[in-house]
């Protein structure tokens, strides 16, 4: 018989060869190629974000304005799901069966192994019911988030609201991840980084089905979440609430500033809305309702609405006239029911000659028209362009025409026209002071915002300086607020010039019968104020009032706008008076006065055509 014993060598060679090939393959897989180690890390660990508690917000007297409440998201991992009682689950989370099935289908489409949200932000009450039954719904689990809560439901425009980050934010930021919340408006936005804290992370080991098996290396690499800083606002919640009440059924705004610090005491934009409307599951429905509301409740008029300042601007021209020595406190202009030059006629109500103080007291159009023309036609200046620019510089030093750069988002500039503006409009050298005369009484191209006018009141109260208005008084855990709120900003005017103006504003309120703002007067507090009526092409004029009080050592500066309210004296002045009394005395002595304001409904006026 033939022997094939030699064939054993081939078989041995085969064994050795294959062992060698496998060893080389293992060497490359395990030692040379590092990419598998990275894959393994991603494979087996799950990074679970630890959301920090967002900072709480208090008012200046430590009344709680915003806090957090736990909310519960219901999630599902489709492949862990078993048959369950859909009707029961639907009744707990208030879904129809179809809605639930649609959500589950969506989750399946996304991933069988990864969790998807079925319903967001369930309340604690629903959660309590759900928690007892969740063992029946395999694959479902609950994740805790926090929601903003507003115990007093005021100051919505100041506080702002939160929203989920969008793709743009995620792309431009290293911090935010999909599903995160971010401040969209108000101080939630401007103090986002203080409030949000720092997200932590817990690393878990998970299996292939994403089931958590324990913490990774006993939490050695976990990062604790750092809670957000609490904020103390400068606003006085009582005053804020009172202001909102006074402004109910009216369109407009109130801005109250503490002159000696620049702290905003109240900031009201009306109509307002309940801040809780923009929290949680109801947010999207409510948001579109609010956006589509013709009264624009989401629009923060205090910072974003630009109106012609009207007669309140006369004090600015008065100041500039004094500074440029165009007028002396004693110099008089004659008013004979108006201001007449050639074909031009500016109506007025007086038949007498006014000095500056009584012109402010009576808000004489003729006086300030003449004064403004004289400022523009000043012989000291080369031409009208130079004098307009000079005037503009003075105006801008009063915080007008540019954003004040306060700590609320979305401020607007307002508008103080420059020489260039008129060059463009009329052609270089082809415009004269008479064409601009409406600005003498705060009309024409001029635009200012309520907060700028309140700041102007503060400047006058301070006799010549201001601190940039701001709404955050203290950030917990920090010694200082932003440096820019601590700089004393001087205007280009002298305190002596303010004194004259203040006399006029004092007389306007306390000058007795015939003065423009007697409705603002208070028996025991000396208020200085100035009315304004902003012409409005769309309807009745806007009623404006700016004031500060008391006259000596002022504690409060305020600007009130009531859209379509007519004369400044009619609505804005009494509201101002009530606000000042509320802040300084805490009680309202004139209930009938208060009632008249509270009962007034001016909402329809804006929709009517102007009646000439």
């Amino acid at each position, binding site marked *: 018989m033939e022997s094939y014993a030699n064939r054993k060598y081939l078989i041995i060679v085969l*064994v050795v060869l294959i062992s060698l090939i496998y060893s080389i393959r*293992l060497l490359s897989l*395990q*030692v040379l190629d590092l990419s598998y180690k990275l894959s393994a890390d991603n494979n087996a660990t799950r990074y679970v974000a630890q959301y920090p508690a967002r900072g709480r917000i208090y008012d200046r007297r430590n009344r709680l304005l915003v806090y957090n409440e736990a909310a519960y998201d219901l999630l599902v991992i489709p492949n862990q799901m078993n048959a369950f009682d859909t009707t029961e689950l639907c009744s707990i989370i208030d879904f129809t069966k179809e809605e639930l099935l649609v959500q589950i289908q969506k989750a399946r489409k996304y991933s069988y192994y990864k969790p998807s949200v079925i319903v967001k932000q369930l309340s604690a009450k629903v959660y309590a019911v759900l928690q007892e039954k969740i063992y029946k719904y395999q694959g479902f689990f609950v994740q805790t988030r926090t929601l903003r809560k507003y115990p007093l439901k005021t100051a919505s425009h100041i506080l702002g609201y939160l929203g989920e980050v969008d793709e743009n934010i995620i792309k431009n930021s290293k911090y935010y991840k999909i599903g995160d919340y971010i401040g969209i408006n108000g101080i939630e936005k401007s103090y986002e980084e203080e409030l949000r804290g720092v997200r932590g992370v817990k690393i878990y080991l998970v299996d292939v089905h994403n089931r958590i*098996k324990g913490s990774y290396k006993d939490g050695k690499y976990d990062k604790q979440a750092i809670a957000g800083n609490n904020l103390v606002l400068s606003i006085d919640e009582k005053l804020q609430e009172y202001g909102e009440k006074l402004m109910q059924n009216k369109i407009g705004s109130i801005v109250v500033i503490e002159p000696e610090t620049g702290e905003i005491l109240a900031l009201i934009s009306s109509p307002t809305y309940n801040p809780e409307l923009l929290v949680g599951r109801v947010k999207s429905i409510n948001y579109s309702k609010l956006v589509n509301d013709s009264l624009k409740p989401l629009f923060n008029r205090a910072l974003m609405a630009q109106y012609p300042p009207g007669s309140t601007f006369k004090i600015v021209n008065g100041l500039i006239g004094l500074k440029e020595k165009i007028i002396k406190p004693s110099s008089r202009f004659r008013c004979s029911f108006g201001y007449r030059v050639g074909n031009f006629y500016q109506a007025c109500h007086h038949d007498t000659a006014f000095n500056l103080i009584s012109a402010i007291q009576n808000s004489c159009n003729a006086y300030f028209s003449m004064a403004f023309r004289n400022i523009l036609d000043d012989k000291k200046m080369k031409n009208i362009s130079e004098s307009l620019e000079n005037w503009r510089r003075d105006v801008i030093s009063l915080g007008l025409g540019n954003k004040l750069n306060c700590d609320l988002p979305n401020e607007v500039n307002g508008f103080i026209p420059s020489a260039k503006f008129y060059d463009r409009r009329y052609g270089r050298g082809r415009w004269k002071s008479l064409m601009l005369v409406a600005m003498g009484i705060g009309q024409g191209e001029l635009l200012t915002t309520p907060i700028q006018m309140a700041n102007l009141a503060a400047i006058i109260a301070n006799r010549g300086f201001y601190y940039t208005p701001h709404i955050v008084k203290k950030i917990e855990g920090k010694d200082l607020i932003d440096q820019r709120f601590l700089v004393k900003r001087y205007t280009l005017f002298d305190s002596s010039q303010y004194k004259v103006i203040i006399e006029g504003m004092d007389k306007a309120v306390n000058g007795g019968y015939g003065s423009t703002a007697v409705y603002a007067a208070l028996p025991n507090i000396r208020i200085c104020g100035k009315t304004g009526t902003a012409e409005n092409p769309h309807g009745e004029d806007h009623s404006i009032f700016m004031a500060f009080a008391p006259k000596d050592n002022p504690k409060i500066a305020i600007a009130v706008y009531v859209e379509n309210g007519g004369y400044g004296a009619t609505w804005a002045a009494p509201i101002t008076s009530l606000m000042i009394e509320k802040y300084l005395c805490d009680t309202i002595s004139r209930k009938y006065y208060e009632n008249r304001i509270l009962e007034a409904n001016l909402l329809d006026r804006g929709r009517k055509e102007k009646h000439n």
Partner: protein
Amino acid sequence: MVGRKNIINNIDWITIILYVIMVFFGWVNIYAAVYNEEHQSILDFSQRYGKQLIWISASVVLIILIFLIDSKFYSFFSYPIYGVFLILLVAVLIFGKQIHGAKSWIELGPVKLQPSEFTKFATNMALAQFLSAYNISIKKFKNLVIALVIIFVPAFLILLQNDTGSALVYSVFVLVLYREGLSANLLFIALLVAILFVSSLLVNKLYIIVALITLAIIVYYFVTLRKKLFFKTIIILLVSIVIVIGLNYVLKLQLQNYYLLIIALIVAGALFSIYAYRYKLKNSFIVFLILIGSIAFTFSVDYFYNNILVDHQRRRINILLGLETDPLGIGYNVNQSKIAIGSGGFSGKGFLQGTQTKYNFVPEQSTDFIFCTVGEEWGFIGSFGVIVLFSLLLIRLILLAERQRSSYSRIYGYGVVGIIFFHFIINIGMTIGITPVIGIPLPFFSYGGSSLWSFTILLFIFLKLDASRFELLW
């Protein structure tokens, strides 16, 4: 009882030591693969490592029994044992329990057994018995057919159980036939057919044709005696390729590349045949015929696969080739397995520190993919160690087989080598992405009583035969 002492002296302790190391290391890795903090006791029999301890203890009993039984018993009862297991396989088909789609389990009270595992050694015994019979030569066609029937009847029954992987193991008996004198040419053709079948389903036809032509040219170069003629025919081939491609381009026939290649080959082949006939180039002509045959076969595989096979048969082939195993997409399991092994690095993550296998990223981590745990927790050192263990065992077994005096023992020994070798190649190969994912266990390592016992019986019958090699001279 003189023999008893002899037997202890004659036992091959090297193999036994290798066996003990493998079983112990296997158990350690099963413990790591299913380890969780709630069940830490190694004697927790609700866990797989606890159960495996029972299987191991039972194996010791089996080993003692095997050594107590007279060695003549095995050859004498080869056919009856083979018959019993064939009946069992049929019984499984009728009464069996289906697990993971394969109907290959018999339930005996609490114990589930997989007869197909045990049929391996039974078939090995029957084959050895047949081939060792006096005056049997594998060269005779009739004997070859009988041997193949012995091999393929159980394989076919297992195939019917839907356990394609286990059925495939039987192909390894070709190795035994080879050692016993099977024609190398026949083996070469069988191998070529197998490779062509698999690759024509997995690889682009064009590559196969190019590879075949290249291979044929190389072989042709070595078998032809007239090198001048060799270069002439190559030039003919190249020219016809260029012409065919040119025609396709000019006439805008838009034929696929591999058709072009085939047409060129036929044209060149016609010319070449004339040469071959005139100059009596018999060898070269055979090479050419094999080449044409292979290409034809490649295309017939396609036809066979798409038109003759029915859906579930196609599915089975797909599963076998790893085209359809994973619910998460092709390659998921292999990729996870490679990640697990690759992440082990040089020295591994350490015992019980593996994350990939422990957390179920790897499927079947205590059975078919146990090697992942080795690779992840013990690193290259561990996985290389396992490969060294297996090659030492296999070489040792080859040497043992060669020292047998009886051809029964030798043939049986080679059967053991073949079966273990096949499991080793496929199992480790699939975890490192070299072979298709065919679910068969790693001998001595994978969890499972049937698998451990069947390999133990397989191995120790051979050791018993080896230990008593001096007793018998027939």
